[in-house]
């Protein structure tokens, strides 16, 4: 374990050595901390002060106020909580379902591979946003529904990346060696192959976070995401759009935070791919435009 710790530290050190990934990491850490400790900040995202509606940024309201006089900064910070929880949950679902699918498909091959990967192809063939909207239509509009819907669209990338990894490891001698001294297939999959596949899977987690945040925002923007009054970035963009003329900061400032978050995850993902696997453009992820189109 000590060894693992020192390895993690050295990767962290090398991430911080590059300006881009250091900034990305700092931004993500601060926004995560803000979201976690939002309750302790002197901010209230739901307190309305109608007399104070649509006021520009000021000393009391750094990001200004919305049409109901609520503090936009408070709503951005509490919105981060919504975004990060949805994205984190969705990626967890995608990984927990996708990785075992990839493992089994790659390890056994044959009919299991064909069946599982066709299921994955079906998921991949449906446009993510339509699929998520259909899921929400069935499940009803709630944060859990948004989380599950976004999670399901992330399954294919995990399944494919894991399967590709298993296929390269499957015929390696150290996997055959475990078979030779009597290890079961399950043992080989989870104890030999999986620990050797962590790097690409971990990179995929980071990259998929950005995709999930964007997809969650898009759902809220379309009015099918997390229901109000829970603050969410997509929701703010949607309402802010109507006031673009008289209060441009209303949509622009949350938009900037959203963009920076996604950008940071992306930068971090690419940097990790470089560090852990020594290659660029290694990431299989649905591109942002595919998600929003």
């Amino acid at each position, binding site marked *: 374990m000590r060894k693992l710790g020192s390895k993690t530290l050295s990767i962290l050190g090398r991430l911080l050595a590059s300006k881009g990934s250091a900034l990305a990491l700092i931004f993500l850490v601060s926004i995560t901390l803000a979201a976690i400790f939002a309750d302790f900040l002197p901010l209230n995202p739901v307190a309305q002060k109608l007399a104070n509606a649509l006021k520009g940024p000021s000393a009391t309201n750094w990001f200004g106020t919305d049409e109901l006089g609520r503090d936009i900064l408070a709503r951005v910070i509490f919105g981060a909580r919504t975004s990060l929880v949805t994205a984190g949950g969705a990626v967890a679902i995608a990984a927990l379902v996708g990785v075992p699918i990839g493992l089994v498909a790659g390890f056994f091959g044959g009919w299991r591979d064909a069946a599982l990967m066709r299921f994955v192809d079906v998921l991949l063939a449906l446009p993510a946003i339509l699929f998520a909207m259909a899921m929400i239509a069935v499940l009803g509009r709630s944060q859990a529904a948004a989380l599950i819907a976004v999670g399901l669209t992330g399954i294919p990338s995990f399944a494919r990346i894991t399967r590709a990894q298993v296929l390269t490891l499957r015929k390696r001698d*150290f996997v*055959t*060696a475990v078979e*030779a*001294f*009597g290890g079961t297939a399950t043992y080989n999959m989870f104890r030999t192959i999986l620990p050797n596949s962590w790097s690409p899977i971990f990179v995929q987690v980071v990259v998929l976070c950005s995709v999930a945040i964007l997809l969650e925002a898009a759902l809220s923007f379309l009015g099918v995401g997390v229901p109000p009054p829970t603050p969410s970035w997509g929701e703010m963009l949607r309402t802010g759009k109507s006031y673009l003329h008289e209060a441009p900061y209303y949509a622009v400032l949350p938009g900037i935070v959203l963009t920076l978050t996604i950008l940071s995850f992306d930068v971090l993902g690419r940097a990790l791919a470089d560090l852990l696997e020594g290659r660029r453009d290694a990431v299989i992820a649905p591109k942002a435009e595919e998600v929003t189109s």
Partner: protein
Amino acid sequence: MVDPVLSVRGLKVDFGGEGRSVPVVRGVDFDVYPNEVLCIVGESGSGKSVTSLAVTGLLSETARVHGSIRLCGIDVTTADPETLRQMRGRDVGFIFQDPTTTLNPVLTVGRQITEGEVAHGRLKKSGAHARAAELLREVDIADPEGRAGQYPHQFSGGMRQRAVIAMAMAGQPKLIIADEPTTALDVTVQAQVLAVLARRQAEMGSAVILITHDLGVVAEVANRVAVMYGGRIVETAPVAEIFANPRHPYTRALLRSIPRIDTSDSRLDPIPGQPPIPGALPKGCAFQPRCAVGRDQPLCKAEDPALVAVGDQRQSACHFAGALPAEAIAAEPRILAASAAKHEPLLVVDGLRVHFPVKTGVLRRTTGWVKAVDGVSLSVNPGETVSLVGESGCGKTTTGRAIMGLVRATGGSIHFGGQSIRDLDHGTMRKARRQMQYVFQDPYASLNPVLSVEDIVAEPLRIHGLYDEMGGARRIAELFDMVGLSRTMLGRYPSEFSGGQKQRIGIARALALQPKLLILDEPVAALDVSIQAQVINLLQDLQRELGLAYLFIAHNLSVVRHVSDRVAVMYLGRIVEESSRDGLYELPVHPYTQSLLSAAPVPDPAVRDTRRRIVLEGEIPNPASPPSGCTFHPRCFRATEICSANAPSFDRYLDFATRTACHHAGPLEGRRNVFASGAMEIAS
């Protein structure tokens, strides 16, 4: 005296950035004269390949080259890129190790071998095809006109390497650089390729630098030898002198550490320790920590000896070159395993078949079978070493894996300790596997990189739930002692070990469950020459102490002769001859065994002119469509009509212990021993 083609003085090559530069070549001087073959011998990391790239200016940007290199009158270190390009096209030919990657797969072979001449304006495009055919004919490729229009994947490995030779020789270069040209080839094909290379070199009078680690090849082709160690030449001398009377302790130790096909049972005398890593060289003489003469001598520790003349045409870089003790103590004889014929055989394989389906088309219909193993019968007694020898693709590894249950057998029976172990269910197979373990060829690929070596060795015990029962951490430490690794290494990861150490870990893991039989799949083939002897000795010691039986799978006939009690020779999925070790090596009766033995290079230049080789024609056929009758008949020098019609049965030869499958079995005419006598019958 003629001027040298290539003259190198004070060559130094450093890699790496500021502050942590790694010296890979540290001051090399040598000359190569026309019509001379200079062999550069060394282990991995000795700087031999980097030297050859440096002399032609082919090193990457990150390398810093110092010293002077004069090639055909051009100073390579100062020449501009265009002059170098012209020079490389005109004066130098290259032959690399792997012919599959040297040739461009999307161009026809004919176009590639004439490309250089066309690009340098010495050949018109219209004449290229005829020229290509002419070049291919010169390297003995049948149907050269047709072959010139084919692509590399339609050529076999040996033919590709001959095409590469044709390409290298096309411009009649003054210097040919061949970097391990036959290492990727089988022994019978190696013999063909070396013969072609030697003939073309003699016809054109070129100078050749041949880089190799195989002392047998050196003895076979070299005129002069330069031995490299730790980035320097430590000894150079005419080939006969190097082998007869080495004047550097490293050369001498190297010669004593290799198993020889033509000698006996003396235990190998390995060089202790590991080859040095460039960048972490010992102070003083780089060989000092491993040297029998200079170890811990204050002079050797303090000062790196210069390469100085120690006689006519020979140089040595050793403080004690003039005063080497005559010949060290004779190596102790190898202890042969006690005869175990009275015991029940441990492993009995009868008529084993492994056929893989060939599936083609959209519907994946089975259209044929690759008969990887086609009726192999053998037995292994307790405490005995049985070797399976053959060239690549003969099915020896598949046989081992099928016995281990890693590949499904499609026919025949496998009995271990009296019990059938073919097609067992998982639980029973697991129990059987406790008795039988596998050691892999490639120590780099067979250890899980994310586990510590302690966990790797403990893994079989944990899987069988025996970790605590068999003594836990204490048992692992014992296993480390057994294979000669320090207990302080327990917590490290595989990437921190050298190849030889990794193979020891692989052996410790195989021994963890106290098996009775080890299947060793080319266990030393991936190791450096000086490390091979250490591992072979370790295997022999373990066998004696633990009474292990070995099924030893190998292609190296010298190693096999050294370790085996009995030997079986495989060709195209079948055993063609099986006998006691001495029976097989001294009186081979199957023509394939005879040619295999005659093709193996012997590290003794004295026999190269007297010994005649049987150079087989062609290469191993595709096992998906084997020839009719005896599968060896298209290449056999004794084949008659009956051979193409009927497959011979595998029977006892006369009243000898040997069993063989041949219609015309018999010793080579008038010769009892391939190696004891001079000339041999020539392949007809």
